[in-house]
């Protein structure tokens, strides 16, 4: 992983995932150190993503590294018409590693090809967001003690949700069973079903929450966004079918944990926050340790 950019979740192997998870565990025990002292990390956010940016910056700050960068394209030279290539070539001179968020798909791969220093993709449009997937894996491992043979429910927008697709691909290495709960119009795309079939992984599709959730180990919630529906009436019909409420969690397994990449809008009822099975805020904290693991391993410090 040393000196290698992390652009897509496919860039890492199963062994790499496990290495990052082990390292994240180490950082969780000792999150503060000087291991990044003297290192400069650029955070180039061509579109705002406060949560992701703060998580990266917290990760670097706690390890003694310094941060340079910008928080949206309006405050950078992009506004003056500079190409992505020129921005990256320039910034690569100033830093040891570039963390980049960009609305255009494939921008991170391209940046990694022109940059002299490694690039970590913090989201390129609807394409990839690999550090999110790694922190999801770490959260699953931490709450279940293993990644193997788990029953995973993916709920909400399974058609456009990139976190869902990346998680599905990554978890497929660990013999899971998947249950998909989504409106008909936002079902998981066929290409993923074909992939699961080819690997002999069991999956079931449901239109709404079912009694089957009593068998779940992980429930991964996502937002069902109004703008995904061509027909607003269709949205009104389904919008309340994918809201998780406390009473629905009765009779579920003790080890069940509810994950959500955040931000949440209304798909998890506030009352669930106090349920011991709610894990989404701790999941966000895990992002800091996971990003510490990713950055230090790419810089060859771990």
């Amino acid at each position, binding site marked *: 992983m040393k000196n290698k950019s992390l652009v897509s979740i496919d860039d890492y192997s199963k062994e790499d995932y496990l290495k990052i998870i082990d390292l994240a565990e180490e950082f969780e025990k000792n999150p503060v150190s000087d291991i990044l002292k003297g290192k400069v990390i650029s955070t180039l956010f061509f579109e705002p993503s406060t949560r992701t940016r703060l998580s990266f910056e917290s990760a670097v700050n706690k390890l003694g590294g310094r941060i340079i960068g910008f928080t949206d394209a309006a405050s950078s030279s992009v506004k003056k018409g500079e190409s*992505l290539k020129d921005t990256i070539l320039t910034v690569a001179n100033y830093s040891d590693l570039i963390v980049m968020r960009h609305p255009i*798909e494939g*921008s991170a791969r391209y940046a990694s090809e022109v940059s002299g220093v490694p690039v970590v993709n913090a989201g390129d449009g609807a394409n990839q967001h690999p550090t999110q997937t790694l922190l999801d894996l770490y959260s699953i491992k931490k709450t279940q003690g293993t990644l193997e043979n788990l029953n995973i429910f993916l709920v909400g927008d399974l058609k456009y949700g990139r976190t869902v697709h990346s998680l599905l691909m990554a978890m497929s290495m660990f013999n899971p069973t998947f249950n998909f709960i989504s409106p008909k119009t936002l079902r998981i795309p066929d290409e993923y079903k074909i992939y699961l079939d080819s690997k002999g992984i069991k999956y079931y599709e449901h239109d709404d929450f079912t009694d089957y959730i009593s068998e779940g180990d992980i429930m991964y919630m996502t937002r069902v966004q109004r703008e995904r529906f061509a027909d607003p009436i269709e949205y009104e019909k389904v919008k309340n079918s994918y809201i998780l409420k406390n009473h629905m969690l009765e009779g579920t397994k003790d080890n069940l944990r509810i994950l959500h990449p955040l931000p949440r809008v209304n798909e998890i009822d506030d009352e669930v926050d106090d349920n011991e099975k709610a894990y989404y805020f701790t999941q966000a904290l895990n992002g800091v340790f996971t990003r510490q693991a990713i950055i230090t391993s790419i810089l060859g410090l771990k």
Partner: protein
Amino acid sequence: MSTENQVKKVSALRNGTVIDHISAKDLFNVISILKLDKIETQITFGTNLGSNKLGKKAIIKISEVFFKDEDINKIALVSPHAKLNRIKDFKVVEKREVEVPDTITGIVKCVNPKCITNNEKVRTKFTVIDKDNVSLKCHYCEKNTNHEDLIYNL
């Protein structure tokens, strides 16, 4: 009229390459992909010739030029049925069919309007994930471009 007679009708070639069985509508794409407009030697074209297989086909004869396999395979995307004959002293010394390559650089546009290749000066690059139906996966945005969506970037 037999194919052989049709070929002769377009005029015989002493040394060079004959590309046959191009579907007529793709002739000008093939010319662009192989950059035939930059070649100085004699070239003859025939188009809208009868073909049982393609309906209307086109044929190109290029004198004194022999293409590299990688160049020839570029036309497989446009004209997967094209056949190539290398001619020496009026005789066919080699016949081959075009083959869709494993990767495609340039030539084709990515179907995704939000892809970096459609937003900055970045050359497209694809992995061919299905050679029979010509389905391409973008190296950058990772979206698939299928045969019916192919737009040439010439």
